[in-house]
């Protein structure tokens, strides 16, 4: 067998990659790159989310007409993907870098590719491609059209033109770039195991994150109590629905300042608790669809309320200017 290897492989052995950026430098570089392109730098959301899309800076900001550009890192928790820190690629919590450009500029692909160059990827020496992958989040009533970006066969970014969020048709269309930072760092550093990634020059990913992976995997798969998790889901859902109903009963100016954002936070709570129950194997196939529909219902009501409320605010602001 080995003989074949010698005979047919191209003459030169695979070159060692130049020592790539540390995880934190990668994050800093990308944030810097996008802030220089008029993005504001936001912080990760402080509630458990499954993806950067759920951050209000994406979910709510893409609604309505106002232009917006933002970049932020978002640690994303996916209980079912946890592997107790034993799998070299699967993580309970991975780190996304999220960019929203609203409206989508015509040169958005070039901007994105330049950001790869900015972190040390020579675009002429790598096989970079955009392969069809439309994104959809049934819990958020959101979907978009786009690609997964592959770097030498490795998926590194989800690139999406948002079409709907919270059930609302979007106008203008925003573009969402979601970088998988853990994967990109592994790639840049040429390591096969994400836990071997250099977080900084002296500290590894393992040192920073392994305990989290082990403990949250254990909780998700072995310790989470289905009954109380379900109760928490019901409570969060009820509170969110209560707020939304209260908002609906208000008239005109009374709606100003009403805590729609809190209703959304509770909706996010539901989404995470649902993911937890799912990982725990406590949800049957049909129940699954029903619970997703419950979360989506909240998300859709939040989006509609937010749009109405912020639309009102925008009109007020316009009046002041006038």
């Amino acid at each position: 067998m080995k003989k074949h290897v010698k005979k047919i492989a191209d003459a030169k052995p695979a070159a060692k990659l130049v020592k790539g950026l540390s995880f934190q430098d990668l994050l800093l570089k990308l944030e810097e790159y996008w802030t220089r392109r008029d993005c504001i730098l936001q912080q990760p959301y402080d509630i458990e989310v499954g993806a950067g899309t759920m951050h209000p800076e994406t979910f709510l900001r893409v609604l309505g007409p106002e232009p917006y550009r933002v970049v932020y890192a978002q640690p994303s928790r996916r209980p079912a993907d946890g592997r107790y820190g034993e799998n070299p690629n699967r993580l309970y919590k991975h780190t996304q870098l999220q960019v929203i450009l609203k409206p989508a500029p015509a040169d958005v692909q070039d901007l994105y590719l330049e950001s790869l160059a900015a972190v040390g990827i020579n675009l002429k020496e790598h096989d970079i491609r955009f392969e069809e992958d439309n994104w959809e989040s049934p819990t958020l009533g959101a979907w978009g059209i786009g690609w997964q970006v592959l770097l030498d066969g490795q998926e590194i970014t989800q690139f999406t033109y948002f079409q709907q969020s919270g059930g609302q048709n979007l106008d203008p269309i925003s573009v969402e770039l979601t970088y998988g930072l853990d994967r990109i760092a592994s790639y840049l550093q040429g390591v096969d195991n994400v836990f071997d990634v250099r977080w900084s020059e002296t500290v590894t990913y393992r040192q920073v994150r392994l305990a989290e992976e082990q403990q949250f995997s254990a909780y998700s798969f072995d310790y989470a109590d289905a009954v109380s998790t379900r109760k928490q889901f019901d409570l969060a859902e009820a509170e969110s629905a209560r707020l939304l109903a209260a908002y609906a009963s208000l008239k005109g100016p009374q709606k100003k300042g009403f805590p729609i954002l809190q209703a959304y936070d509770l909706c996010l709570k539901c989404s995470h608790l649902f993911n937890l129950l799912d990982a725990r194997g406590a949800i049957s196939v049909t129940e699954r669809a029903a619970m997703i529909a419950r979360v989506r219902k909240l998300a859709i009501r939040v989006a509609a309320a937010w749009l109405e409320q912020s639309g009102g605010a925008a009109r007020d602001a316009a009046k002041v200017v006038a």
Partner: protein
Amino acid sequence: MKAKAAVEGGKSRGDFLFEIGCEEIPAGMILTASRELKALLQKQFLANGLLEEKSAEASIEAFGAPRRLVAIARGVRMRQEDVTREITGPPKSVAYDQVGEPTRAAMSFAEKQGIPVSKLSIVNTPKGEYLCAKQVVIGRPALKILGEVLPQVILEISWPRSMYWTGAHGPRFIRPIRWIVALLGGKVVPFSFAGVQTGSHTEGHRFLGKKHIPVKSPADYEIKLKKNFVLGRPAERESKIATEIRALTSRGGLRTHEDTELLRLVAYLNEYPSVIVGDFDPAYLALPDEILLTVMRDHQKYFGLESRNGELAPHFLAVINLPKDPKGLVRAGHERVLRARFADAQFFWQTDQKIKLGDYLPKLAAVTYESRLGSYSDKVARMRSLARWLAEQWFSGGVSQADVAGSDRAAELAKCDLVTGMVGEFPELQGVVGGLYARAQGEAEDIAWAVYDHYKPLGLDDPLPRNLTGCAVALADKLDSLVACFAVGAVPTGSSDPFALRRAAQGIVKIILERKLPLSISAAISAAAKALKENAPRIEASEAVQKQVLDFLLERARYILRERHGFAYDEINAAFAAGADDLVDAVDRVAAVKAIRNMKNFVPLAASFKRIRNILEKSASGIDKSQLTVQADLLWEPAERELYAAAQRIGEEATRKKKVRKYREALEAISELRPAVDLFFDKVLVMVEDQNVRRNRVALLAGLLKEFSTIADFSELGGEEAK
């Protein structure tokens, strides 16, 4: 950049180049879209008189690559031809008075046409002489026309799922359009679409080509594209890939599986494809080929390689969108990704097999099949009882290799892999993984293959399970799905078939027909209903539901016989009307009907049978035909006596042939009835006054229809045109 318009027959023509420059179009859609682009352009060129009917098809070509849809048309008119139209007015007699002066009628016609009366002429028509106005419609420049129709052409290309990018009021397309080249005879066809103004500049390869490349003509365009690392035509890309694959494999004494589907896919994923070799650790070869190939082909779009003796080799071919990989960076990346995938697979292969396949059975209780139909563990119980029943049927029907215990065991194991890590990771390998685990764990070969194959056939072109035990499990699985889902009302509709019941029904028909299995479909359905009733959650499938399933299955059988076996509607209807419970037998009868339907005697005989049925229907009132018997002594017309005798003689002959399933010969015998039937209708009146005679004649005809409709109901056969 001067326009070079060819002169042909004194009329100026030019070549047309159209390129829709786009962000990456999904690979699977480019071919269809380019075909549609060609058809839409052809329609517009013809409708606007810019190409001639006879040459339009050959003048236009269209092709595509990830970032562009391209059309080229040769010899397009630069301007429409001027057309002279003759508009007829009032008759000459009305238009001029006796002294030849124009009348009011002539003057108002001229005014309406916008020309002076003096310019009117006279035409001769069959109805006489009429006033006529000649109008010359000046042809419009093609640049102008195309500028109007091309935006419409872009919008009319259909896509499975299109998108907005300039906002909710903008156009929709598959991906954002970023540039448009539209040239005719070297001149830009002016229009703008989604904020993009047409021009004469294309873009090269995303990373290797120039960004703003001027082009003058289709030929110039193709040269410049190549210089800028884009192979515009898919055939060029495919052949580059195929050539490189051959070169790389022959050097190593290796080969790839012929895989035109993958070749086409990668040709549409790259604008400048090249093939590189990568290696993987030979230790992974310990994993089954099915798993390695699924990972390489379906997940990574690599070609797997094998040595001449058919063994998988520890290499792969990846198609990349670059001319070369001098530093091996791309290769290292792909190898790394594959390593991670294989490591996952190996992890599952080992951890899954820490327990035996059968030990996963209890876990199926936690996997819902359908909320009302219980878990997969419930489904397995039903499948086992059905698989046993099927094997018993076959065994007693003379199929000696039918294995009751083996079918039961295979059904028991069939669904266990659903809860393994491997199927969780590679769902497309369900069944296959179970089969591999069963074999690795020492189950009998037959049983392992039965588990492996039991989802087959997945489509009309997919092969059957390779052994009879596999057929038993496959049928048990599909029959249960059908009867159980119908029982709870989960019936497929035109647009929705979430449990793939159509495919299940087709699979059932295909297995029975191709293996020529003796089986009563209605008995199989009621066996499935019995299993559904006797096992948790004990659902009742009523007689009506069972009939519904039977009709659904027969409908699929008709479909397959039409689409795959080439039988006509009425041939199938005729044979099925005489029973279709034994499908294999029914198809033999359909074939016999097809074989004899155009014989001399048969067409008129079929018409006579139709007539008999009509008479019987009309005379139905008050006569219970099942109670009728012919009284030979009441037959007094010679023609009716002759028919009676012929029917008895031919009936015996036909019955003999039918018993040994020589349907064609039986039908040939029946067709001998024709002269007697013709004579009867010629000479004998059925609906006579005398009630006894009338009743007797109805009895004769009813008996005839019944006796001779056991192979096929000829009255279902249409004329030849019905085929």
